[in-house]
């Protein structure tokens, strides 16, 4: 009885797909939010929902690559802060904004290079390298701007972050969509993307298959630094101000977006579609919570719980499934226990 019901469940393929679960949850959130606020589903409001988190979702794209590759980058939020700090400090010192912008991006690239070299060639764990990077880069922001707040940005930087550039879309969202397409092509349709998966599955096998493991990892961390710096600049431009604590703690939500999207924390599996769905879910959930007057701090708590659940639930499901399979196997072997029975069965079939 139980086994037939399970079999029918197993036949319902869509329930087994993580993306489908995310999609259903996303629809539920949309339904509740639009029931509460009539104008919720308008294009303007949806753009606004994205706009407020544009920097985080940009970084989530590269974080997807890194986690699929079997690594993690905890330093992204500090790189964002450091890029914002370099931008702010250089402008404060009177350098032209263009130069400051370029310097901020180069800083991000160097941070990524620093992390990447230790991880790829020093063969140190990315957890500890990027944790040290997170503390160190944040420390450098404090050195740069101390406890002041920098707000003297030129107009074009304000406009870059706050004005719509193309139709209703601000620059940060255009960059997100552009990077999303690039990321999709690279991850899902290029040799490099396959290498990212293969290394995440098994570093040694990848090496013996001739994949340049070190180069791939280095490229990923440099890209992570560069994109985080870009996100940091966009964040500063959107707020029109920066402090030493700018973007602090963002890694929590960025990693949550990726893991909730079904990317395996140990590497090797996950899709951009899943991450995109989890971004949609989290942003709309956050917006819904804001509509219900839940404070930002409480939302952070909810995101923290989501992060844990996004790994815990699949773990428990896998284990429950394995347990059921084990029991079924035990029962089947018990049924075929004695040779006499086996003979009897054969006789019947003849």
């Amino acid at each position: 009885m139980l086994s037939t019901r399970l079999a029918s469940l197993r036949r319902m393929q869509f329930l087994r797909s993580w993306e489908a679960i995310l999609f259903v949850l996303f629809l539920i959130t949309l339904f509740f939010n639009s029931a509460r606020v009539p104008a919720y589903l308008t294009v303007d409001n949806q753009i606004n929902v994205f706009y407020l988190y544009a920097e985080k979702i940009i970084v989530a794209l590269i974080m997807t690559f890194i986690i699929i590759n079997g690594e993690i980058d905890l330093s992204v939020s500090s790189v964002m802060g450091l890029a914002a700090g370099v931008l702010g400090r250089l402008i404060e010192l009177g350098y032209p904004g263009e130069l400051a912008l370029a310097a901020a991006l180069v800083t991000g690239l160097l941070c990524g290079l620093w992390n990447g070299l230790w991880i790829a060639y020093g063969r140190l764990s990315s957890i500890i390298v990027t944790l040290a990077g997170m503390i160190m880069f944040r420390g450098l922001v404090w050195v740069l701007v101390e406890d002041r707040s920098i707000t003297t940005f030129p107009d074009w930087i304000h406009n870059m972050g706050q004005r719509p550039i193309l139709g209703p879309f601000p620059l940060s969202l255009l960059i997100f969509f552009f990077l999303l397409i690039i990321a999709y092509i690279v991850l899902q349709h290029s040799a490099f993307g396959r290498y990212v998966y293969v290394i995440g599955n098994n570093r040694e096998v990848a090496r013996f298959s001739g994949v340049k493991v070190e180069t791939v990892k280095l490229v990923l961390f440099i890209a992570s630094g560069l994109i985080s710096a870009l996100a940091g600049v966009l964040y500063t431009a959107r707020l029109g101000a920066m402090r030493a604590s700018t973007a602090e703690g963002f890694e929590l939500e960025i990693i949550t977006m990726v893991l909730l999207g079904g990317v395996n924390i140990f590497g090797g599996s996950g899709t951009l579609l899943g991450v995109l769905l989890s971004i949609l879910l989290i942003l709309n959930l956050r917006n819904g919570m804001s509509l219900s007057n839940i404070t930002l701090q409480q939302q952070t708590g909810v995101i923290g719980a989501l992060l844990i659940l996004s790994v815990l639930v699949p773990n428990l499901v896998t284990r429950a499934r394995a347990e059921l399979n084990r029991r079924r196997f035990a029962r089947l072997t018990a049924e075929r226990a004695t040779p006499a029975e086996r003979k009897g069965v054969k006789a019947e079939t003849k």
Partner: protein
Amino acid sequence: MKFITRILRPEQVRELVTLFLIVIIVLGFGTLLTDYYTGRTFVRVSTSIAIIAVVAMAQTLVAITRNIDLSLGAIVGFCAFFLGVQLSYHHEIGPVPAALIAIAIGTAMGMINGLIIAYGRVPAIITTIGTMAIYRTAIVLYSAPEGGIVSAHRLPMWARQFASWSIFKVGDLDFRVMVGIAIAVVILIQLMLTYLPYGRRLYAIGSNPEAARIAGFPAQRIVFLAYLIGGALAGLGGYLFLLQYGNLMVLAGEGLEFDAVAAAVVGGVNIFGGTGTAIGAFLGATLIGTLDYSLRRWPAISEFWRNAILGLLILLAVATDSAIMARLRLIWARAAAARTTEMAEAKARSMPQA
């Protein structure tokens, strides 16, 4: 070389290196700063490392089992806050019951981490980043009716004076009760790691989880207990935190988890499990505390350099450990093998004569 391998183990060499670095820092800043060799310096440094040392013990326990706990700072903050609010309303609570309250709360929070990590098999880094956010939210929610602060002037008299209680005094040099508690904790944890079967099992799990599992160790329970004890230590850390600072904001204890990681790693605790001692982590905390205090007094650079240097220190410690410690162990293993052959040969030589 032969002599060294006989009287020291690689871990002890590592501890001596940390101690050596501390001496260099003290001598170096002693020449740079005036009035450096005073009792005041000792009091400042020793009280500032008391809290970090206790929290670093928690980090050491979980690090030995190949895990990490980034929620420790939030646990310290919540315990300090909870206790602070309770003491503001209940002046009758004494020092010992207050400590027990903080430890109980910390244990409960560590238990949640342990359950999710050991039994739910969620990686420690993910779990504790998540619980860090949750516990921080808990502080904000819990402190909201109090306006988000605990003020020292509402605490009972003993709590305001606790930080200046001393065990003994030699002139300027004041050995505070807090420091005594921290050192007692370090010694207890070291004894547990060295002599209790549970302590040895932590190393077994950390150095080779697969072998430990095959040997029949209850890996999940051991890791769970490590988080439980870690939570209790963080609770004690919260108790000390409240008594040291008195005035708390919701950000209380923020960043302590990184200080604890730094102390453990600089002190030679391998974050990938299997090696490390409580004494080493304590020395790591001392090194960071001394450097921290000295840099702050040194006018040549701004105090804001602290975290940049801390991050670099962690990375350098890990990098040199991974490059050097493996080689050291190899030398020690060879020396041990050579000793065994020597003994066997000596025995063989003495046999025919007998």
